């Protein structure tokens, strides 16, 4: 999962195949990158169903835009950019829609958790981490996922998000700090 699994020559061949009208090239690209794309989105969005929907949207976008893709560009970076943008746009929309209801739901969950007085297990840890990540601004969230989970170099993240390397480093630092503070409060 970690790192950029780009096989440049192979990608170019697949793109050419698709441009020549053979859908097998596209299918191969989907199979090759579906997990990476899924996890890029999942770590930003958190919810599996929403991730599934956005993953499909990303590959539909790829299907329509691949014919205009310049072969000298990096396919993985391009996919990553599309996936990140789709995920960030999604959480921005959801955040605007569900600001109040999310808080209410969180309170209910907290109440139930306290009452049950259950031990901190993996499921709860996961929940706390998801919540911690959800408190991050979209860009910090994306940077954290790219750097921590996918171990992308700062330069590549900077290309994907169109921000300076210094800005990306600052985003990453603040993201880790905020997650730590949230986890500390919750445990």
């Amino acid at each position, binding site marked *: 999962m970690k790192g950029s699994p780009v096989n440049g020559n192979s990608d170019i061949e697949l793109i050419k195949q698709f441009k020549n009208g053979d859908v097998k090239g596209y299918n191969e690209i*989907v199979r090759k990158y579906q997990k990476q794309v899924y996890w890029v989105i999942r770590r930003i969005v958190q919810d599996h169903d929403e991730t599934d929907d956005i993953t499909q949207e990303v590959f539909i976008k790829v299907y329509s835009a691949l014919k205009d893709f310049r072969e000298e560009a990096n396919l993985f970076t391009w996919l990553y950019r599309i996936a990140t943008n789709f995920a960030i746009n999604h959480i921005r929309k959801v955040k605007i829609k569900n600001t109040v209801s999310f808080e209410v739901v969180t309170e209910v969950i907290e109440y139930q958790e306290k009452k049950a007085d259950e031990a901190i297990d993996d499921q709860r840890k996961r929940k706390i981490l998801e919540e911690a990540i959800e408190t991050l601004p979209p860009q910090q969230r994306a940077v954290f996922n790219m750097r921590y989970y996918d171990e992308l170099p700062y330069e590549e993240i900077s290309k994907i998000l169109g921000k300076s390397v210094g800005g990306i480093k600052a985003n990453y630092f603040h993201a880790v*700090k905020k997650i*730590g503070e949230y986890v500390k409060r919750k445990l």
Partner: protein
Amino acid sequence: MPKNIKNIEKIKLMLPDYAMDKLNPEEKKIVENALQESTELMALYGELSGTFNFVNGVKLEEPSAQYWSTLLPRIHERIETKQKRFSVETLVSYWKIFVPAAAVILIALIYFLVINKQSDKTITKKQIEQIQKDTVKKTDDIKKEVVKEEDKGKESPKTEKVKNHKPGFKKLPDVKNIDVAQKKEELESNGDFASEDIEQESVFGEGAGSLDEETESGLDRLSDNEEQLLIQELKNSNL
């Protein structure tokens, strides 16, 4: 001092990578030196390391193998649906333009047809009015001729009737004429009156079918068309 603060800020940003062991040896050495000098940085490093330990211990649920095998067909399904929807939407967008355009053309067509018909009717009315005027004029001419004849001293009951005739109105067989017919019968039985005179007096009472000689001669001078129109008008003017 400001240089130190700037360095501390720079080293702060390097701490997450140091905690994850992602720095090159040179950067690593710089951070380690800074940590030995600054307790603040050391505390921060402790916090960040704890966070990473926590995050490392959390495993997100992996989707099932079935999920990955069905993802591609589902993507193709959605692509097809979108393409179909796109074609329907394109068709709808064409209709959105076509229907109002057709309606406008239809309205324009109906409008022009109605207008043309109305203008045709107007022309026909004008023509009829013109013909009526011509007829009146002709009738006046006939009258004038009759008056001329009267001036020549040839005035007779027949010409009197023509002189009194008004175009557009036809004398009905009025009470007077009925009386005359009755009188005629009475007088004939008495032998006082010639039946010929009474018949001549009631000439207009019997309708356009029995015009007197003068009128008929006037009508002969008219063209066939004018004559027909005049006769028709005289017939139609009967109440």
